[in-house]
């Protein structure tokens, strides 16, 4: 008995995925729930567990290939291993358990649902080329969408795509062409889109990290949890910073889900600390460490990179002093944190050596004005410079 391995839907907006690596070789044995392959999408990279115990009898899509969600990737034979002929998915039950108040549905083989009719008209689909997988062979919406995806894939493979032409040209000129990974494409798309839509303005503040320095040594933390804490306090005072742009108006988010940009080998991921305002410094420290570690090892779940309401990028980690970050749409601001450096500063009319850093706030001038942005930054600065830190929420 064989089961199909298909490209999973990793998050609601994901249309395709790239096979990074087959973790089980062809013919290899795999346990149910053991990692079978590594897949990357434009949002996450993660391991896909096997749906059953068995041996990998067929690999249809090779490493490095990008295919639409639902594409058949491989086949797993588990008949020989378990001797159990049960299919993996539970078959449709008759509706016997329904009480008197419930509806049941029945299909007709030649029935085209309104959704299917619309797609057929829109894309001029030849229904003769599609085999229905629905009840009594009904052609479902999914069948049409999968068919359309395959058609698009075939056109690309036919060799008329610009990337293939560019590749041949590049190599002939003594240059190397680096293919764009899905993550690279996504980053490129989103950054350009953000630049094109938002009215970016950047404001800079200098912050004295003396008390943070002391507290973080006591608590064995990085600077980041303190910055996150200061940002949540800033948002509490100026909630508008926690809104997102929409055509109808600014949507003010009540929950503070703070995204933290993490550099990984392939690019950049922004895991999100949910309800960051409700967590104490130690919790924030733990979660930042956990999310960064799992971002690098591609263990993030789709929901862990979604739903952010404000983003922090810690470019100082690589020695950068200033930066003008690009806003993570549809949010309206992003905070850049520069490197903390010991500098001579004037304090109480004398020169003192203090750990200092530059903070930059890129904000969308469509949504807020400079005065609001600066008041928010003053709040963040004053929280970071508070005389004594406590591990409170």
């Amino acid at each position, binding site marked *: 008995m064989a089961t199909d391995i298909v490209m999973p839907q990793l998050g609601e907006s994901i249309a395709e995925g790239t096979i990074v690596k087959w973790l089980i070789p062809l013919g290899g044995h795999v346990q149910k729930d053991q990692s079978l392959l590594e897949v990357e999408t434009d949002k996450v990279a993660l391991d896909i567990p096997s749906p059953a115990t068995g041996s990998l009898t067929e690999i249809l899509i090779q490493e490095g290939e990008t295919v639409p969600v639902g594409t058949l990737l491989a086949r797993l034979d588990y008949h020989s291993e378990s001797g159990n002929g049960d299919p993996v998915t539970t078959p449709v039950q008759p509706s016997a358990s329904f009480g008197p108040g419930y509806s049941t549905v029945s299909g007709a083989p030649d029935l085209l649902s309104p959704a299917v009719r619309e797609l057929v008209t829109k894309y001029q689909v030849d229904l003769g080329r599609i085999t229905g997988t629905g009840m009594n062979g009904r052609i479902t919406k999914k069948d049409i969408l999968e068919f359309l995806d395959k058609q698009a894939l075939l056109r690309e493979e036919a060799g008329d795509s610009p990337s293939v032409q560019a590749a041949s040209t590049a190599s002939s000129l003594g240059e190397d062409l680096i293919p764009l990974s899905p993550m690279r494409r996504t980053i490129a798309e989103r950054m350009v889109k953000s630049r094109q839509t938002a009215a970016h303005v950047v404001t800079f503040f200098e912050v004295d990290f003396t008390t943070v320095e002391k507290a973080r040594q006591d608590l064995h933390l990085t600077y980041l949890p303190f910055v996150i804490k200061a940002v949540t306090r800033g948002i509490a005072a100026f909630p*508008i910073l926690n*809104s997102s742009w929409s055509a*109808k*108006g*600014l*949507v*003010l988010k009540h929950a503070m889900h703070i995204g933290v940009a993490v550099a990984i080998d392939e690019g950049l991921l922004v895991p999100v600390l949910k309800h960051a305002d409700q967590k104490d410094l130690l919790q924030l420290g733990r979660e930042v460490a956990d999310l960064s570690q799992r971002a690098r090892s591609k263990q993030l779940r789709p929901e862990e990179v979604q739903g952010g309401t404000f983003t922090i990028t810690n470019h100082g980690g690589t020695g950068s002093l200033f930066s003008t970050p690009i806003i993570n749409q549809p949010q309206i601001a992003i905070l850049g944190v520069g490197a903390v450096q010991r500098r001579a500063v004037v304090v109480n009319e004398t020169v003192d050596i203090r750990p200092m850093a530059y903070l930059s706030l890129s904000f969308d001038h469509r949504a807020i004005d400079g005065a609001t942005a600066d008041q928010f930054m003053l709040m963040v600065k004053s929280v970071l410079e508070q005389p004594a830190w406590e591990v409170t929420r």
Partner: protein
Amino acid sequence: MEISQSEFLHLYYYLRLTRALEERVTTLYRQGRIVGGAYTSHGMEAISVGYASALQADDIIAPFHRDMGAFLVRGITPGEVLAQYLGKRTGPTKGKDGNVHMGDLKRGIFAFVSHLADNLPVATGAALAFKIRGESRIVATNTGEGGTSRGDFHEALNFASVRRLPVVFFCNNNQYAYSTPLHHQMAIKDVVERAKAYAIPGEIVDGNDVVSVYLTAQRAFQRAREGEGPTFIECKTMRMHGHSEHDSAKYVPRELLEEWKKKDPILNAERQLKKLGYADEPDFHEIHMRVEKEIESAVEFAEQSPLPEGPEALEGVFAANPVEVLI
């Protein structure tokens, strides 16, 4: 207690204004210019004029459909009343509701609903607000004897008494609930009996004597203002027209109407004004002419006012919240 000349002339003016306005309503109804029903307080004007005149400016009334005098005393103009009857945009409900179904919080008037006695719990609630906030404002509410058979009447009296709320309940006992005579409505002779069960002091007054209503109301209002709780005042009267203007009221014996005609509240007031030396025929004529003129211009205002546009029907189901989620 005595009534001053200026107070009495004020009451008399409003009796005449109410009578003249409602007579005009009847005329407009018979001419087919009023599209819906028309309900008047003909012969019962002394009750609403009397109690409403005894209130202070920031008090509240929760009236019913025989209370035209109270609406006018509280500042609803005859023009607004006629605009309301004609379904015009200038009426207090902008055409959303008809006839006497109108209110205005700025003028301290709760609009009533057709479900009679529903306004009584609402009146007690306003009194509760005043009590909680320690204000000396009071509420006056009125219903017919018909409405006193409903549960809301009893729930309102009970709650008002338990919490000693500053509300005064009037009952316009006009002997008929539509066509049903009093003895088929209740097994007691006087509606005031009902108040006893709630330990509310009750009084019976001649509802056709505006001065009696006025002075009794004043005393009850004073009690309420001083924290002594509610009073129930039964005003005995007679409905001289049908339930509404389409109803010929043939079920009411003619001799009963003839008898009550002699007790007409306007004639009654005139007799007393003359006796007290406060006014005489030339004064009555002068007031009558003034009132007629007011009604003429009210008709003109109402007729020249625009009707609402159909889609305005969609407006106002909800009050807008000042705090919106989208900013």
